[in-house]
């Protein structure tokens, strides 16, 4: 199984107890947890095997940045490693669970302040415990006409998702790029503000991505170099209008012209949202479970796929995106897009329009939801899912080849292919979802085998994943191998300099402090 799961925090029970007591004295007994039930509540909801392999030893839940500082200093004193979570809803990637057993969860769920929202300059300043639903409720309750970029599962943290490189499907879909201006507690307990925030009371902290000197913010995403205690997030001004375009395609190989045609429109910024292309499985998994369609072993045969497509009236691939802002400009862009597609296909777009004054429900605003949680039961039993998501050049032939390799591998390991593609301006994320039954040990073995094969296949073609589950963080880190893993070595050099006691999130993204590092 996962190499990372063999490591355990070297904290003696007495040492842990002393640490938790010291924290309790600072933040209150009721926010320090070490009972068996509490510990289990931080395990991975969709664990790919025995969840105890990633079980923490306890949890502490501060309310303020000052309390985070205190906890980090105490962790240094008692040499107790922490694992930071914002709200712990990183489902499919490990949820709240740490890479390494025996650490203490630093749970920021209580840090829920919405510190500032500026409607004119379209940004908010929030703490990591603020969820998508919280921020949306606040915007609505105060009549603020700013749109968020939400997810299929919006139970999580706005900041936490951005820090994990999470994505949506709006022009603001690259969430890490919306981060502007952070406050951090560093591994030594110091507090740092990035960019223009390094100056007292500078009003451009959350407005300008560049400060003076090196820009550090992306270094604190998918990392274990600091604890983000607040951040600015750019939001989208409510547009004057939207125009929705939908098209289906019948054959798997159609992904070639879909990606190439949409890709050009993305690079030119005619289409400004992260454009998604999904296969039929999305509709089937949202509405049904596998056994409703097929009970046999291995991946579903083509005849079953055809029945699914007929029932939901969907294509093998399904394109939907929106154009945003001035209705007249949207119409002009839609005509341009239609012309581009006429050159490659006889298929036509279905188009619908919304403008200010029309019913808001038709606007296409990205609202918080949990619909995608319905999919996890696809394989039967207590469901779970894990996504494999390499990043490729925005190129139809390459996207088809990656899709085809993945589909063949999934079939080989007995899984139904579920694919969606996110088109960025120059790259494409090719996401394949693997659904499994958490209680089927044999199936979980197959998930591990499949996932490692997919990592190797992608790496062989020069591609790496943008994000991964805690079981595979070391494997994916190892696939970034240029110059004898120079980037990982650099990250670990930095880790040792900033965090000599190895306190913050050991093993996150494969970055281990010296204390827990294993020689390859």
């Amino acid at each position, binding site marked *: 199984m996962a190499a990372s799961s063999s490591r355990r925090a070297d904290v003696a029970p007495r040492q842990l107890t002393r640490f938790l007591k010291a924290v309790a004295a600072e933040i209150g007994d009721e*926010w320090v*947890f070490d009972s068996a*039930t*509490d510990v*289990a*509540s*931080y395990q991975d*909801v969709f664990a790919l095997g025995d969840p105890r392999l990633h079980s923490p030893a306890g*949890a502490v*839940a501060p309310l303020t940045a000052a309390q985070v500082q205190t906890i980090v200093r105490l962790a240094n004193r008692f040499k107790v490693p922490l694992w930071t979570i914002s*709200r*712990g*809803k990183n*489902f499919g990637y490990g*949820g*709240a669970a740490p890479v390494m057993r025996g650490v203490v969860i630093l*749970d920021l*769920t*209580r840090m*829920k*302040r*919405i*510190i*500032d*929202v*500026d*409607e*004119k300059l379209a940004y908010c300043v929030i*703490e990591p415990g603020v969820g998508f*639903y*919280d921020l949306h*409720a*606040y915007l609505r*309750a*105060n009549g*603020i006409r700013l749109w968020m970029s939400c997810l299929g599962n*919006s*139970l999580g943290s706005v900041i936490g998702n951005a820090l994990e490189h999470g994505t949506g499907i709006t022009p603001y879909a690259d969430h890490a790029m919306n981060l502007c201006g952070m406050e951090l507690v560093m591994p030594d307990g110091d507090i740092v503000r990035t960019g223009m925030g390094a100056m007292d009371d500078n009003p451009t902290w959350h407005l300008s991505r560049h400060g003076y000197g090196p820009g550090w913010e992306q270094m604190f995403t998918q990392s274990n170099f600091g604890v983000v205690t607040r951040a600015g997030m750019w939001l989208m001004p409510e547009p004057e209008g939207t125009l929705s375009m939908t098209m289906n395609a019948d054959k798997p190989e159609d992904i070639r012209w879909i990606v190439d045609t949409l890709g050009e429109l993305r690079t030119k910024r005619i289409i400004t949202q992260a454009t998604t292309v999904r296969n039929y499985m999305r509709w089937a998994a949202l509405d049904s*479970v596998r056994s409703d369609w097929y009970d046999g072993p291995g991946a579903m045969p083509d005849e079953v796929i055809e029945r699914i497509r007929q029932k939901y009236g969907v294509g093998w691939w399904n394109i939907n995106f929106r154009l945003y802002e001035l209705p007249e400009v949207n119409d002009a862009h839609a005509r341009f897009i239609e012309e581009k597609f006429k050159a490659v296909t006889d298929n036509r777009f279905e188009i619908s329009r919304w403008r200010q004054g029309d019913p808001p429900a038709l606007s296409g605003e990205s609202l*918080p*939801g*949990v*619909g995608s*949680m*319905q999919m*996890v*039961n696809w394989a039967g039993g*207590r*469901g779970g899912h894990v996504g494999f998501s390499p990043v490729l050049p925005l190129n139809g032939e390459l996207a088809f080849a990656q899709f085809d390799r993945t589909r063949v591998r999934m079939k080989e390991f007995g899984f139904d292919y579920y694919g969606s593609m996110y088109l960025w301006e120059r790259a494409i994320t090719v996401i394949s979802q693997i659904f499994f039954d958490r209680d089927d040990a044999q199936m979980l073995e197959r998930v591990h085998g499949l996932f490692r094969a997919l990592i190797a296949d992608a790496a062989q073609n020069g591609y790496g994943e943008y994000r991964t589950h805690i079981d595979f963080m070391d494997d994916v880190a190892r696939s970034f191998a240029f110059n004898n893993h120079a980037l990982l070595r650099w990250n670990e050099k930095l880790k040792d300099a900033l965090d000599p006691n190895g306190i913050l999130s050991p093993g996150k993204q494969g970055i281990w402090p010296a204390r827990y590092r294993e020689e390859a």
Partner: protein
Amino acid sequence: MRRIMGGRVLLAMLPLLFWGVVNAADNRVTVEPGQAYFMYHCETCHLPNGTGTKLLARRVGADKSLLVRRTDLVGDYVRAVVRNGVGGMPWFTRVEVTDAELEEIVNYLTRNNPR
């Protein structure tokens, strides 16, 4: 529009802001705490046609799928489901749903049970 509202006040009011369950005549909140906590913590999924309601319909039938209409929920079962999850529903830590909040939710969901 800067500094619309202080954060602490907001936190306390979030369940209410979310649904705007406020009596317009005297501006007083008209829901009991259990309902407010249920709305905040549970109704993201357990509302009519919500994800939780749909999944429950598959498991226990449509007539029992909407939790607020149930008259047969047992307190200990609600506690167990919230703390341990069930099927596709994830569990909740005691930081996210405190014990006190869970008790209010239990009171609310069992309010119509035959006594």
